[in-house]
């Protein structure tokens, strides 16, 4: 099958109408309300960790059990939050984003020129 640039043939007006439609705005709002705060959260959490690592080395060296100290636990905590956020996002995207995107795709496909 040969592919051409900008394959499907929805008109510009259809894209403009779809962008203004309530169902698209709903999808857009849900995506942004999830990814922006979540991005802010993990960046701040990462920044906190980096700043502690740079300036609070004594605090990071505080022993917790055996030879394991606060710094190591917070570092492993970064791994944990990364895995958790990944899982939460996938759940969210599967439930909230995919069905809405699929519905819009179907609608646009039905209105191709």
């Amino acid at each position: 099958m040969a592919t051409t640039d900008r394959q499907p043939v929805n008109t510009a007006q259809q894209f403009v109408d779809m962008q203004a439609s309530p169902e698209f705005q709903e999808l857009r709002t849900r995506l942004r309300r999830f990814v922006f705060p979540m991005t802010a959260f993990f960046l701040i959490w990462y920044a906190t960790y980096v700043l502690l690592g740079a300036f609070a080395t004594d605090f990071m060296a505080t022993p917790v059990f055996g030879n394991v100290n606060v710094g190591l636990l917070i570092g492993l905590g970064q791994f944990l939050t990364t895995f958790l956020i990944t899982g939460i996002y996938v759940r969210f995207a599967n439930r909230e984003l995919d069905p809405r995107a699929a519905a819009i795709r179907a609608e646009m496909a039905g209105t191709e020129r």
Partner: protein
Amino acid sequence: MTLLAATETVGNPAANIGIFALFVVITMIVVIRASKKNATADEFFTGGRGFSGPQNGIAIAGDYLSAASFLGIAGAIAVYGYDGFLYSIGFLVAWLVALLLVAELMRNTGRFTMADVLSFRLSQRPVRMAAATSTLTVSLFYLLAQMAGAGGLVALLLDVQSKSGQSVVIAVVGLLMIVYVLVGGMKGTTWVQIIKAVLLITGAGAMTVIVLVKFGLNFSEILGSAQQAISSATTAGVANRDVLAPGAQYGGSFTSQINFISLAIALVLGTAGLPHVLMRFYTVPTAKEARRSVVWAIALIGAFYLFTLVLGYGAAALVGPDRILAAAGGVNSAAPLLAFELGGVILLGVISAVAFATILAVVAGLTITASASFAHDIYASVLKKGQVSESEQVRVSRITAVVLGVLAIGLGILANGQNVAFLVALAFAIAAAANLPTIVYSLYWKRFNTRGALWSMYGGLISTLVLIVFSPAVSGAKTAMIPSVDFAWFPLANPGIVSIPLAFVLGIVGTMTSKVPGDPVLDAEMEVRSLTGVGAEKAISH
């Protein structure tokens, strides 16, 4: 066979070469079988978009876990302890930027290159030119770091001590890479990365298990022995390090603390702007598969960095910092020496072969990305104004790949023995400054326009390069690339803390001062496409 004295090789070079040759033969067969069809641009640049999410995720891990992160991070943990661990956290958390903000939207909007997305609703030719310039710069620095690293690896693992002998090996690596790319295209390159990732992660995993078992599955015990080994080291300046807390490498002066923060910013924001990572999102059929790719990549990369934590401290405890620092590859030899300690000649051979395979897979991925960008963005869109057939683009891309390969061999030979470790960090800093702001703005900011994109991309690229030239990484320090002269006025070896915020601000200022409003129609098309996948490029079925 006993461990030989300082600056000698360990293990059996013939075994190391033999296992590596086996890897080359197997991957070559796979590449040739997988690449019967490479005629169309879609097939050559994206492998027909036919890879599944998990396959692509493994390939991303194979692309991302370069020799620098395997040998470098394990070695840094073995010698500096905690500060080596800090790198891996930046490299991992960075994937959340790709997952949440970039991967799916890129997949839905673009076709072959990063520039497809950036130029979607902006002025095509100037924006493509800027994006391609930054793609080529990032890829070249990354490529150079890998090729130069190959020289040190050769000295350590293959017992090739002469510079000319090492040059021959660098040339062989470069030629193999050219063959992979020419024969295999993106599909072949992807398979090389998948095979390498599986070998690397299982190899590191097996070593981790052996280390843990040796210490009775008690991680705290490993930490204790590592600290003990460091404290009793005789190499100057090592014994007083606290390797269980941060600060052994970056502590001390305020400048080095700021330098560390600067590096941390570049690592976390650079990944989602690396062109060879972004291009991998086009090898899957849908945005949902792009999401699954990143999930797999995060799981594999995260697991791998946890392994390197055990391996690094394990190497400190079992091999000891003195032997590591005295070995031919210096810090980079920690993982190979540990492999020899744990499993003798065979395990060392496997790990050595994996390290070479790593260099091959990464340089192949970089080369196909750079050559695609040159052919698709610069040649087809800028020079020929789009009047180029797809087969012509593939032809130009193949020629570019050969030129890049030859260039990489030449530069790699010149850089052999030079201190180019900062080049990988520099590639991340450029990707974060020159690419990420424009990617984020063009996906999420309606008002964003051509001037904003150009100011941000060129501003980020030029400021990063200028600051690095006048930094202690290039001149004026004992560890600099040119230690004999001093023209450094910028105190940090990592420019990201200045250049990345600057590029974000330039994007806003450029946009606001431009009288050209965005095109609302193109904005509508891009937003609807990026969020829903309407009209996204489909997989090719034969």
